[in-house]
């Protein structure tokens, strides 16, 4: 198929960016979206044009490294998939495709389509852990049974891949879905209880410091989340936060 690609090019964090147009032909249906970009890059290099820079690694929807805003949607058309799982059969010959980076104040652009999402790491560092040393001499793994329902919900929350689509989609650039997923995983498990209050306060505080916006309950994040992380987590986090602020002696 033949396509027209309109791609955001930006030489560096401080440089001014612009949309550039690249016609491309010979794209196959079976290619993934990122393979289509590889294909473009091979041609650009042959023409002496610097290839388009984008983040990617696992190419199977689990590492959370790929991003891209495709035709106005985080991870492109299709639900519950990442950009690396999007295939060209979703497009047709003659289409024009707009490809832009994830945009948010807290995700500065590094180059072209690549952004800096290290703010997510800093949120996790603020409390996304259970303070147990790694000696291996803890209690037996089966000593505390966890009701299956809670274990399953904790797992569902824990499947967040940290891609940032929720932030990129949100008109306020809020990171609530991401942060609430991690906080919920621990608050649903007995092991997470002792530090629950501190955790939610510290992680939310860090989220604000990083410059993410507030949540106005639009719900767009849940729709675009490739892992189907539920808004229920935000509600749980808000409850935990309120409770923690009222009862914490901090």
């Amino acid at each position, binding site marked *: 198929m033949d396509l027209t690609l309109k791609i955001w090019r930006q*030489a*560096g964090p401080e440089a001014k960016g612009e949309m550039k147009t690249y016609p491309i032909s010979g794209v*196959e249906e079976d290619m*993934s979206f990122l*393979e289509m970009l*590889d*294909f473009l890059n*091979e041609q650009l*290099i*042959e023409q002496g*044009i610097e290839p388009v*820079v984008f*983040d*990617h690694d*696992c*190419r*199977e929807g*689990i*590492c*959370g*490294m790929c991003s891209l805003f495709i035709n106005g949607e985080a991870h492109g058309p299709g639900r519950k*998939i990442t950009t690396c*799982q999007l*295939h060209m*059969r979703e497009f047709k010959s003659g289409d024009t495709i707009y490809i832009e980076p994830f945009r948010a104040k807290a995700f500065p652009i*590094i180059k072209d389509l*690549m952004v800096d*999402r*290290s703010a997510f*790491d800093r949120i*996790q*560092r*603020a409390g*996304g*852990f*259970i*303070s*147990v*040393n*790694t000696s*291996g*001499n*803890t*209690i*037996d*793994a*089966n000593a505390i*049974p*966890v*009701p*299956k329902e809670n*274990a399953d919900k904790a*797992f569902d929350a*824990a499947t967040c891949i*940290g891609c940032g689509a929720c932030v990129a989609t949100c008109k306020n650039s809020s990171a609530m879905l991401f942060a609430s997923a991690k906080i919920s*995983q*621990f608050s649903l*498990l007995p*092991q*997470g209880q002792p530090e629950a209050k501190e955790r939610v306060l510290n992680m939310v505080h860090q989220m604000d410091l990083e410059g993410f916006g507030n949540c106005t309950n639009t719900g767009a994040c849940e729709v675009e989340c490739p892992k189907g992380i539920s808004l229920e987590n935000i509600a749980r986090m808000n409850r935990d936060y309120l409770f923690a602020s009222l009862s914490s002696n901090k």
Partner: protein
Amino acid sequence: MALDSKIPAGPLGEKWTKHKGEIPLVSPANKRLIDVIVVGTGLAGSSAAASLAEMGYNVKAFCFQDSPRRAHSIAAQGGINAAKNYQNDGDSVYRLFYDTIKGGDYRSREANVHRLAEVSRNIIDQCVAQGVPFARDYGGLLDNRSFGGVQVSRTFYAKGQTGQQLLLGAYSALNRQIAKGRVKMYARHEMQELVVVDGKARGIIAKNLVTGEFERHSAHAVLLCTGGYGNVFFLSTNAMGSNVTAAWKAHRKGAYMANPCFTQIHPTCIPVSGENQSKLTLMSESLRNDGRIWVPAKKEDAEAIRAGKLHPNDIAEENRDYYLERRYPAFGNLVPRDVASRAAKERCDAGYGVNKTGEAVYLDFAAAIMRYGEEEAHVKGVNNPSEAEIKALGERVVEAKYGNLFQMYEKITASNPYKEPMKIYPAVHYTMGGLWVDYNLMTTIPGCFALGEANFSDHGANRLGASALMQGLADGYFVAPYTVGEFLSKDIRTGKISTDSPEFEAAEQAVRERTEKFINNNGTKTVDHFHKRLGKIMWNEVGMARNEKGLKQAIADIQALREEFYADVRVLGSANGMNPELDKAGRVADLIELGELMAKDALERNESCGGHFREEYQSEEGEALRDDENFAFVSAWEFTGVPAEAKLHKEELTFENVELKTRSYK
């Protein structure tokens, strides 16, 4: 240099406890004076960095991704083994040890494997304490599943995302130390050189991938936790960034590479669909529990299918060749990975492949769907169900078991595996070979350690499913943090290592020159062009079946490719700032050299064992012939300038606790 594996004396079950007790301790005050570099933040690296920091060492950790959480371990699907015996099915440390030795076709060290089995139990305790949400049963206790090659149920899992959950657990432990300032994290940094001072590993040259700057980092010890090198085949199930650079730089500086030719080719992956494909996707081993593997029995049918004139569902039962069931009646579709992969290749080579490229076989769930459907109908008391009703019921059972995999398959191939058989083909998945390490996980360069998939230590010639995650966490949480003490206890008075030494200067200079060379090369072909060609050579000659002639040809071809690469590769842009093409060029350069050594290793190993199959060494029925008399050793290669002229050192393997047997699955 003579290889000293430093295996402690004494009975197998006591070696580790005794050794651990005897390793000199470094006092907390002295630990503060010692710096450790950990390269890699997968399961092995994150767990090691967190543990060392807790103990009091100053740790610097590096990864090339934008976050430690994205290391390739994140992609592991099926599960992690541990000898917990929660299912009360007779599992034990000894059984896990035995299964691993046998599964590895008797090419691994007894002492290391036994230690692995011992600490496996602590891993599960540790992970649960960290909040890893493993699957649980209705009683709230941990659930298990079985994996290939064993008769017990010892695999812990978190749906199809076990690697993700374990890595996020290790990442949280790492984060806790980063927050305390005990670990300094360098993401988007790539180690491009190892610095050796007075014969000891004392630092690295790392490139800041965002700014393009080269940085000198010194330490008293360097731990390489940099993963496997399956990407030497270009197409593999590994992440795009997985590479051998860190290990290869260490190899060039004196670390021996062990058994580099031992590669695991996984039988059930989605086949190659075209020339522009960038990677292959695994379909979990668990599918072989219910799927039947077949190709058409008649060549005309296979040809008609390839031409799009015939649909598999229209081939009558008697015209199908369930070749695994035919060749291995005892194990059928559940033979180990290496055996299943070779059998698929054999049929496709003979002209029975079922996709455009002729390299695919069917994995068919129709029989399982009907079987489960009938069971369900019976359980639900449906009288005289129609075939359609049975099918619908059966599909629901299969969906509950494998839904996410079926969905993943459909996303990639646009074909519905409930309605027509999956097409699968073997793909490169894991590398058993890696840096040679002693019992302390130290390479032949004092102070340079290797953990996880980067070392060769535990899986012999074939790894069992769900054992890589176990090994990564065992090495990182429970082995290396202690065993480094033996080396570091001698360094308490050394003081900070200076980065101003001639050794650091020379190492940085070497990296700079290489970078300049690529940027100024003005060649005509892209990096991927060369990587793909390397992959083809490796797949055809150093892949599932190898022979003397092909391996010799491969060495010559790779050498020619290397020259052409340096003469004609084209890397645009500059060395300052982000330039992924430039970084890729460096990685591919190292993979090319590694490929040559792999071919050499495969050529020298005149036997078939595990994932290494030499066509000259097979029985009349085409089964692998191992040669214990002459090849029960680890090949450890010393770099001498040209990979094909590397010097071989042998570490003889002695088996005191298990008896060497021929694996038979007939």
